[in-house]
């Protein structure tokens, strides 16, 4: 048991986090602390260990060594309490195709222990400007529509930390813009801390307040966007900064 209150602690703390798949060291001792209220962009090439980190933080898999805490709660020791505080949008989000958006959300709201699940589902759809999707079957949705309902299922129980795994994958430009606006609103209006795995550096520059760069399972860089741009004044874009950080690893 930890003595820290979930309300006082940092949103996310990784301490010497390691993970191994078969003989492959996917995470090699990551140390990271993300304060509340941040929009954190987790960058790295394919196979660098970003999704594994999210899978550990969302209690889907256990770390091989080290610890991971969400709001001060150890994900291994108190997974049920961690799950009450988090929302999760996996990459390639899919839901129950035979059910309507509202039925899907109501189902997940019930499982999250929301008191008035139907009202919560309707309110969330309304908040995310997709109330028109409520009565439609998810099986008929486009990628963008699925993503919006996916975000709705991740936030309808009002999580403290929201994990987004490659949220822009497969979205058209208007879908990406809508997602960006949603992330900004969730962060600024509801105070949700957001941890986002992504390859879209242009989006990271627009929405994130801090970034971390993972390279072959090692965290090689972490700082606020403000400090990062100040540190590399000759780079016009985050893409250039990212390339230089990776090259220096």
């Amino acid at each position, binding site marked *: 048991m930890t003595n820290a209150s979930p309300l006082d602690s940092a949103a996310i703390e990784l301490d010497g986090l390691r993970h191994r798949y078969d003989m492959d060291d996917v995470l090699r001792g990551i140390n990271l602390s993300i304060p509340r209220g941040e929009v954190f962009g987790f960058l790295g090439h394919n196979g660098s260990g970003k999704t594994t980190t999210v899978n550990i933080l969302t209690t889907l898999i256990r770390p091989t060594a080290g610890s991971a805490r969400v709001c001060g709660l150890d994900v291994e020791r108190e997974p049920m309490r961690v799950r009450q505080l988090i929302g999760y949008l996996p990459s390639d989000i899919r*839901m129950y195709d035979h059910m309507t958006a509202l039925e899907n959300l109501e189902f997940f709201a019930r499982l999250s222990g929301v008191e008035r699940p139907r009202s919560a589902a309707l309110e969330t759809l309304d908040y995310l400007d997709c109330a028109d999707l409520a009565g439609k079957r998810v099986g008929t949705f486009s990628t963008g529509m699925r993503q919006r309902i996916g975000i709705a299922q991740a936030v309808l129980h009002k999580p403290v930390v929201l994990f987004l795994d490659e949220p822009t994958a497969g979205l058209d430009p208007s879908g990406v813009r809508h997602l960006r606006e949603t992330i900004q609103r969730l962060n600024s209006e509801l105070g949700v801390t957001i941890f986002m795995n992504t390859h879209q550096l242009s989006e990271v520059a627009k929405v994130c307040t801090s970034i971390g760069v993972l390279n072959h399972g090692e965290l090689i860089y972490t700082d606020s966007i403000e400090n990062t741009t100040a540190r590399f004044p000759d780079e016009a874009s985050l893409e250039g900064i990212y390339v230089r950080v990776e090259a220096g690893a």
Partner: protein
Amino acid sequence: MIGSTNSRIVVTLARHEYRAAARNRVLAALVLVLVAITTVSVLIGAIDYHSQVADYQRYVAAARSSGVTQTAPLPLQVLSLLRGAFEYLEIIGAIIAIVLGYMSIARERTSNTLMLLQTRPITSMQRALGSALGALAIIATLLLVTGAIAVLCLGVIGGDWLAPPELLKLTLALLATIPYMGAFYCLGVVLTAHARSLSNGLMAALVIWLAVVLIIPQVGDTMDPDNQVPGGLFQSLGVDKPTELKVLAKFTTYEKVRNDLEEASLAKHYERFTFGMTDVKDKYRGFTLTHLLHEKRNDIAWLAAYMLVLGAALHRSYQRQPALPRGGTP
């Protein structure tokens, strides 16, 4: 408070399971086949029963008119007309239960919703219970429909509405179908959850079904000399009971192997119980219900044991179920 939250989550999962199964076309087709052939079987039996009762009544009338006061009792037991229905439940009901179990796992894997479930504050026990309760509710609905059709066919076509004791025996036989089909449901879940691919799990469960429901009971039946001649081998040879027992005493090992083979089959226990309850077996006719249940306690215990062991395996499967697909990208 915690208890009510727990039960609310279990009920939510059970309702979800029930609705998903009810909307599945493959399952609906299987259920339709079962209900249709069960109805035809009971219908034909009821028509035959109706004509045999008419024959019997003509015999009684003729006997009375010729001055005979004592007539033979009706040689038919109305419940025994349900033999076909219970045989279909034994064979197709088990397949339906396996498909239910397979779908329970396949649905979450193929729709990629397993990760969404596993990041909610619900325990593996709640998931296992919710899923099992939903499946049992589907099975109970199926049995209710089958039972109602049987009672209606016997009453309307056969002209013999079941009396309360007969209704009770039919209800008990149908209730025994729940652990029987429940065990096959658990088998479907366990093998699908542990198999490398979903189809491998389903195939493995169907191979076990083939062995347990069709092959093993058939081997046991074939090894029973009494089953080879109508009316029984010894009776057809004119051998009396004491002599029969003397002969059988020389084949105790053989008889034990044969009986053990049958005992190993869940289907055989189900068959023995339901055939006892529905008067299919002559030797149980005239037994009181208490006496019958006492005679069948071994089969009840086996059915319950299979259900419990496979239920525990089902829970274990939910505990160990990986959130991520095998070989998935790290």
